[in-house]
C-alpha cells in the first residue's frame, strides 16, 4: 500500500463511463486484479470520504509503465467531481488496496460475470488469466447498451463474450443471472469470478454453490477510508475452522471473498427477506483456490 500524489495522464470517456489514467509507479507495480485504489476528495467539499475504484488496468511494461487506470460512472458528488478532473491535475491516490482475485492452480475454464461499472476489474483479470494460459469467458450485464462496459475489448479478451441488457438494447434482454446457467453449461466453466451489486452477487454465488463450482466475488460496499482504519466496512465471514464467524473488513480482508464463507443473512441485503436462504450446498464446496 503506497500513497502517491499522482498526475493524471489521461482522462477520457467511453459510453457512460469515465476513465482516468494516473502516473503512480509504486502503486501500478504492485497492483493485481481485484485490488482497488482510494482517491482523496478535494478540500472545501461537504463530502469527505475517500472514494474507492477498482484497478482497471495497471501497466508495468512499455510506454505506459507505471500508470494505472480506473473507470467509473457518475453516481454522486465524488464521481461528478472526478468526471471534471483534467489531464495534468494531481490526485491523492492510495493503493493497491485489498485482496486480489486468486488464479486457479489446476482448473482451467474461467467464467467472469459482472454488471455495470463493477466490470472494471474483469478486463484486468481476463488479461492475467490469459497470460496464465486459462480459458476466459465473460458475461457483462448492464441497464442499457450505453452501460455495457467496453464490448470490443471484452470480445478480444474472451472465448465467448455474452452481453445482457435490462432493456434489450444490446445482446440478450435480461440480467446476468438469466445468462449465467447457460454460460456455465456451454463454456464448461470450472471457476467463476463475479463483480456486481450485492443482490446479484448473492444469486451468482448461490448458482455456483448449487453446481459446486468454486467462485470468487469482489465487493463494492461503501468504504469511508479504504485503508482498513475505520472498521465500518465489515462483512460477516465464516471462520476457516467453521467455528462461528468474524466481521472482516471488506477493504482489507476483501474486497475479494469466497462467497461460500460469507454469512449472507447476517450481511444486510438491500431487500432483506427477498433473497433466498443459502442452499445446503454451502458446506460441500471445496476450499478456494481449488
Amino acid at each position: 500500500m503506497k500513497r502517491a500524489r499522482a498526475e493524471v495522464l489521461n482522462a477520457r470517456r467511453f459510453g457512460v463511463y469515465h476513465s482516468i489514467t494516473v502516473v503512480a509507479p509504486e502503486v501500478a507495480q504492485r497492483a493485481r486484479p481485484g485490488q482497488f485504489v482510494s482517491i482523496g476528495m478535494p478540500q472545501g467539499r461537504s463530502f469527505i470520504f475517500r472514494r474507492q475504484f477498482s484497478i482497471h488496468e495497471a501497466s508495468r511494461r512499455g510506454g505506459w509503465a507505471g500508470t494505472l487506470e480506473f473507470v467509473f460512472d457518475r453516481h454522486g458528488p465524488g464521481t461528478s467531481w472526478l468526471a471534471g478532473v483534467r489531464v495534468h491535475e494531481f490526485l491523492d491516490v492510495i493503493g493497491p488496496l485489498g485482496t486480489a482475485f486468486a488464479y486457479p492452480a489446476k482448473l482451467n475454464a474461467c467464467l467472469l460475470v459482472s454488471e455495470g461499472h463493477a466490470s472494471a476489474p474483469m478486463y484486468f483479470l481476463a488479461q492475467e488469466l490469459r497470460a496464465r494460459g486459462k480459458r476466459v469467458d465473460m458475461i457483462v450485464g448492464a441497464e442499457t447498451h450505453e452501460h455495457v462496459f467496453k464490448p470490443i475489448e471484452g470480445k478480444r479478451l474472451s472465448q465467448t463474450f455474452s452481453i445482457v441488457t435490462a432493456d434489450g438494447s444490446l445482446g440478450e434482454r435480461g440480467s446476468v443471472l438469466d445468462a449465467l446457467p447457460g454460460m456455465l453449461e456451454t463454456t464448461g466453466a470450472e471457476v467463476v469470478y463475479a463483480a456486481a451489486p450485492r443482490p446479484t452477487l448473492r444469486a451468482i454465488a448461490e448458482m455456483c454453490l448449487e453446481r459446486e463450482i468454486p467462485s470468487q466475488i469482489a465487493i463494492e460496499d461503501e468504504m469511508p477510508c479504504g485503508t482498513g482504519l475505520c472498521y465500518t466496512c465489515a462483512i460477516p465471514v465464516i471462520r476457516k475452522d467453521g467455528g462461528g464467524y468474524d466481521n472482516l473488513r471488506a477493504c482489507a480482508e476483501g474486497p475479494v471473498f469466497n462467497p461460500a464463507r460469507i454469512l449472507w443473512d447476517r450481511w444486510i441485503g438491500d431487500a432483506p427477506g427477498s433473497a433466498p436462504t443459502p442452499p445446503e450446498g454451502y458446506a460441500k464446496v471445496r476450499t478456494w483456490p481449488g
Partner: protein
Amino acid sequence: MTTSALGQTIAVDLNGLVFSHPVLAASGCLSTGRDVPSVVDVHRLAGVVTRSITVAPSRGSVVPRAAETASGLLSHVGLQNPGVDEFLAKDLPRLVRAKVPVIASIAGTRLDEYVRLTTALDRRPGIVALEVYVSTSDEEFAGEPFHASPERLNEIVGAVARMSRLPVFVKLPPMLPELVETARVCIRAGASGLTLIDAVPGLAVDADRLQSRLAAPIGGLSGPAIKPIALAAVYQVAHVMPRVPIMGVGGVSTAADAVEFLLAGAWAVQVGTAMLVNPSAPVEIAQGIASYLKEKGISSPADLRGRLRVRGEPAGDAAS
C-alpha cells in the same frame, strides 16, 4: 516525531503525562494496533488511543455501519475489538514495537468489567494512560449510558482511578446542559483529565429507500461538521477547570483546527475522522502547529491555552 528540525519543541505535558507533540490518534480510527496500514506513520504520532477495548471480544454492529453526511461521518462500529486478552497478546506488542505511547480506551457495561479491564491493562509496558469510555449502556442501571447518571459515573471513574497507577482520562459526549457538572463529577471521582468529545448521536436517512442508512440506526457523528460543538465543550470545561488536562477531539483536520482547540483550552488533540481521509493528517498537523508557533513567536503549545481573546463584550446587551 522529531520537531527539532523545525527549531521548535512542541512537547506537551498533561500534568506529568508527556507527549512529544500534541497530536494523538483518536479512539476507533486506528484499530487496536493490529493491521495498521503502512500509510500511517505510527511511530510519528504523539500517541495512539486504541479503539475501545471490552473484556470479551466483540464483533461490533451489523452493517451498514457508516454513512457520509454534510462534512461529517456518521458511524456505529459497535466497539468491534478482539477483547482485552487478545489485545494484550497480539495488538499491544505491535504498538510497543512501533514505539508509540498507547492510551488504552476501555469500555464496559458493568462496573466489574471496568475493574477487570483496569487490572489487566494498568501495568503493561507501553500503556501510558487509560481513557474511560462511558457512552456504553449501563446493564446494571436501566440501560442508560453511564454518563447519564452522576452516581454511576462517580462509581465507575472512581473505581478505575483508584485501581490504576496511570493517568485516567474520561471521554464525554457534548452533553447538554450538564457537561461542566459531569466533568466535575469525573474529576472529583479521581480522573486526571478529560477527553472531549465523543461523537455526537445522529441519524442518517435514505429518503429514496425509506430506510435508515445505518443498521444501528443511530450512530456517532464525527468530522468537520462537529468541530464547533467540540470546541464549545472544551472551552466551557477548560474555562472552569483550567488545571485539568483536556484532550480535544472532534473535527480536527488541519493544524489550524488543532490550534483552535489549544486556544479553547485543550492540552492536546486527537484526530479521528481526518485520519481516515488523510492517513498522514496527525503528523502534518503536528508539523503545522510547530510552524504556527514559530510564526507567532509563541514558545510552546501550552502557551496557547487560555490565550483565546473573546471578541467584543458579553452577548445580549439589553435595550435602553
